[in-house]
Structure formats: C-alpha cells, structure tokens
C-alpha cells in the first residue's frame, strides 16, 4: 500500500506514484460503502456503483484532455476549455431549480461569467502572475475552483430568493402598496438569499485548516509541494472563491429579483412556478 504520509522536509522531493493496482485497492473502500448501503436497504447501492464508475471514466477523460491541452499549449484551446467548464457549471447550477426559465439560465450564466472571469483575471495578473497569460497549468485548475464555488452559490442564491419572495409575498405587497420601489419591497428577500449563499463560504473561511484540509492544499502536498507553499496557494484560493461567490450572488439576486415584478411594480409569482 502506498505510504502517503511523508515528513515536511522530504515532501517536496518525494512523489509516490499511484498505479492502477493501487487504484483497485482504493476501489475496495467504495465496495465497503456499497455493502453498507445494501445491508441497510438504502436503495443507493446501484447509484453508488454507477457514481464510482463515472468518477473513474470522467476523471480519466479529463486527465487525457488536460494532457492534450497542456501539450498543445494554445490559448484558444485553453479559452475553449474554460468556456466548456462555465457552460456545464451554469446548467448544473440552474438544473437544481424547478421550472427553470431561460431568463434564469441567462442570469446565472452571465453572473458566473462576469464573476469568474473577473476573479480569474485578478488572480492571474495580480497574484499568481501567470506567464504566458493562458498557461493552462494555472488557469484551468484555478478557474475550476472558482466556477465550482460560484456554481453552488448561484444555485443557492436563486433558489433561496425564489422561496423568500413566495414566503414574504404579504410583506412585499405591503411595501408595494405604500408606494415602495421593487428594490425596497424585496430588500429583505435579497438579504436572506445573499446570506444563505454566502454562509458556506464564510463558514469555510472560519474552519479552513482546523476542521478540514482543503482538497487543493492536500493535493499539492501529496504531489510533493512544500506545505508552506501549499498553504499560500490555499489562502489565495480561499480569498478568490470568497470574492467570486460574493460577486456571483450579488449579480444573481439583484438581477433575478427584477423578474418577480411587472413594470407597474406588481408582484408576479405565476411565471416562477409559484402560486400567487
């Protein structure tokens, strides 16, 4: 069995190769999980098996694609890969909503594009100073982490905003009936949606390194980087994700809320799949 735990002094010089035979041992843990699921009759055994197979296939494919992109080293291939990641993430974020409108798809996509694009540009030019600017070794993993976090945040923000507006219908109409703008009427709903979307990020910042070691940092250490370098990267990633999440949720909530009101400042819930 591979001996992963290395001392900090030797970590940067020792990268243990994980063979296919080693992976087969790792698969044993999935078999244990499947066994527990079957034993308790959870109805999850099949999904777990399919999920495990998909993990292997999807990651292998991604690995080969990345090898190809790294080898060719062309800016347009990197940009295309980033766009693909963004499109898939947008669809995944919106797919969690019931009765999704094309408008929400557009709002989420634009929000993620702007937030992720800005954050990546900021990090790659000011912090990591990537050279050349499209270096896939940095841009693809950084963008993946940004898009992953904005995807979750956008989904939570949109879902929470919709449920808040429905729950606060009476309050919103009370504001509107007094002559309030839609911004004033939906202020509480927006605030709650933003809080719900940002809380996981805030909690993550609070416990990082204490409760969990982040995946990227763990990966770097396993790959042989010095833990001190790994934590610097992890700090960058944590701040990068916080910024991207905040920008995404702000754009999604502030733009999406407009769709709940007519030009005459009337609340319309029918088009959002809720009873008026």
């Amino acid at each position: 069995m591979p001996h992963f735990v290395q001392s900090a002094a030797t970590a940067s010089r020792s990268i243990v190769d994980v063979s296919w035979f080693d992976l087969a041992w790792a698969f044993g843990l999935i078999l244990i999980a499947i066994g527990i699921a079957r034993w308790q009759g959870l109805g999850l055994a099949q999904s777990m098996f399919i999920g495990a197979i998909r993990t292997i296939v999807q990651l292998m494919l991604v690995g080969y694609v990345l090898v190809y992109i790294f080898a060719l080293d062309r800016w347009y291939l990197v940009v295309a890969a980033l766009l693909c990641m963004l499109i898939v993430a947008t669809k995944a974020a919106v797919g969690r909503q019931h009765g999704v409108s094309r408008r929400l798809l557009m709002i989420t996509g634009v929000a993620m594009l702007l937030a992720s694009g800005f954050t990546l540009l900021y990090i790659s030019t000011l912090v990591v100073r990537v050279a050349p600017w499209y270096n896939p070794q940095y841009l693809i993993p950084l963008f993946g982490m940004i898009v992953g976090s904005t995807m979750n945040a956008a989904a939570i923000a949109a879902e929470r905003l919709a449920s808040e507006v429905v729950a606060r219908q009476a309050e919103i109409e009370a504001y509107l009936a007094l002559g309030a703008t839609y911004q004033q009427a939906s202020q509480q709903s927006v605030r709650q949606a933003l809080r719900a979307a940002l809380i996981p990020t805030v909690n993550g910042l609070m416990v990082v390194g204490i409760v969990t070691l982040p995946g990227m940092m763990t990966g770097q250490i396993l790959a042989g980087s010095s833990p001190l370098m790994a934590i610097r990267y992890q700090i960058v990633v944590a701040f990068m994700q916080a910024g991207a999440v905040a920008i995404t949720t702000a754009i999604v909530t502030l733009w999406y809320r407009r769709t709940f009101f007519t030009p005459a400042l009337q609340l319309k819930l029918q088009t959002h799949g809720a009873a008026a």
Partner: protein
Amino acid sequence: MRLKYIVELKGVLKLPILSKVCAVERCGLIKEETSHMASGAQPYDGEATRPPLPMPTNLTSAFTLKEVRQVKAGITVVDVVELDIPTGEIIALVGPSGAGKTSLLRLLNRLDDPVSGAILYRARGLTQYPVQELRRKVGFVFQTPVMFPGTVRDNLSMALTLGGEPGTDPDERMAAALALAELDCALYDREGDQLSGGQKQRVNIARALMTSPDVLLMDEPTSALDPETAERLMETTRRLSREQHLTVVMVTHRLSEARRTSDRTVVLERGRVVACGSTVDVFGSTTNPRIRAFLDTGT
C-alpha cells in the same frame, strides 16, 4: 355630477342598471380609458418613473369602474363590474367567499391590473398616474397585518420615507398617525412580535396614513380580531372617514359590521355586482330572495 344608486339589480347575470346609467353619464370620461385598454396597450417600462400628474380636486367620485373584468388562473373573479365610489364615504364590499371582493379591491391601487375594462381614479385612468404616487394616495390595509422589521417607529418612518409630505416634522407626523389610529405612543419602540393582533392592525392603518392617502382600502381588517377589538377598529375607521374626509373601501365578511360602519354597500356574487346602494337601502329594501337570504345571514 350627482351619482344615483339603485338598490337592487335585476339578477346575478344582468348588469347593474344603475351602473349603466352612471356609465352613460360619464361617457366622455370613460371613453378614452376604455379605448386605451381595449387596444391592448400595456403600461410602458418606465411606468414607475412616470412624471406626476396634478391630482384633480372637488370630484364626487373617488373611483369609477367601467366594465372591469379580472381573470386569475383561468377563472373570472371580477366579471364586468361597473361601479362608482363616492369620495369621503365608507363603502363596504360584501359577498360570499370567492365573490371577488379582494380581487376587486386589489385592482384599485394596482396591486393587480384588470384584463379588460377601465378604472378611473379621480376622473383619470389608473394607468395615467405614476404607480407609486397612486399607491401613496390609495392606501391598503391587508387582512393579515404585516409588520416590517423593527419597531413601530421603524414601520412608520419607513412609510414616511416612501411618501411623506416634504417639510413635515417626522415625529409630529408619526404622533399624528398614531393618534388617528388610536394607538398609544408608548408602543413606539415595541417590535412587531410584542404587539397584539389589534395593535398590529392599527399600526398598519397608521402606517398607511403616513403617506396622507385620500383613499384607504381595507381587506377584511377585522377578520383576525375579537368582536370588541373589531368594533373599536370600525369606530376608528368611521372617525377617520368623517374627520379626514377619507374614502374607505372595505371588504368584510361581517355583514353586521358593514351595516353599522358603511355609508354604502356593494354586494358581489361570483365576480358580479348584484346589489349596490346606500347601506340602509341595501339591507332594508332588497327583495331578491337569494340576496336577501345572504344579507339576512349577518343579522
């Protein structure tokens, strides 16, 4: 222009005779608005920022409804209603559940727009007013009182921010609104969850009064209150209408309340006006057996 009301109408499926008379009398006023609605014109995007119109004064009608129809979820909830609502009076909208009372009320300050027909406020189509300005002049008190976050003072000052008259002292204005709603100033710093149902409803009334409305729409304001508190609230409403010359349009399930409080009563059934006129006449002289039976349930 003097309005006439006929107490009882021919039947559920017939248009109110009086309303037709009124419609003819107001032909010139209504024609323009009707053509606007019939042409399918929609409020334009900049509606909320439409420049204010001067409010006409000295009119006998607060609202005139002309062939107003409203559909919700494919069901006609307001069906070709024609109605005049005189200024400075208390109008009770009564009728069985699902008669369209609340749907009709919501049309009057544009929480909803009708699918067809015309509604005139002070002789001008509702859509001609900037919607926020209209709502400040046509206050709405909901069935279930809604407290905004914060204290009573926060609730009132929020309303003042939205539509208070410039130059007025905020504290003075809030004290006046609380006095009109017969609320003790000691409640100023109470949060919403520290108030009783009756107190919350009075805060809602005071909040609606902060924008100096000409009309107060009340959707079953006493439905969640005990009879004694409800009666006191109705007394407040009567006094407000009398002293402030406030037009009150009130939806109520309590027919005794309508009888004691309102100057005029409109009976709705399945979205149609089946009787309207002075409250004394509607309750005293209606002979249609079905309407009579409904009115007698509250006596």
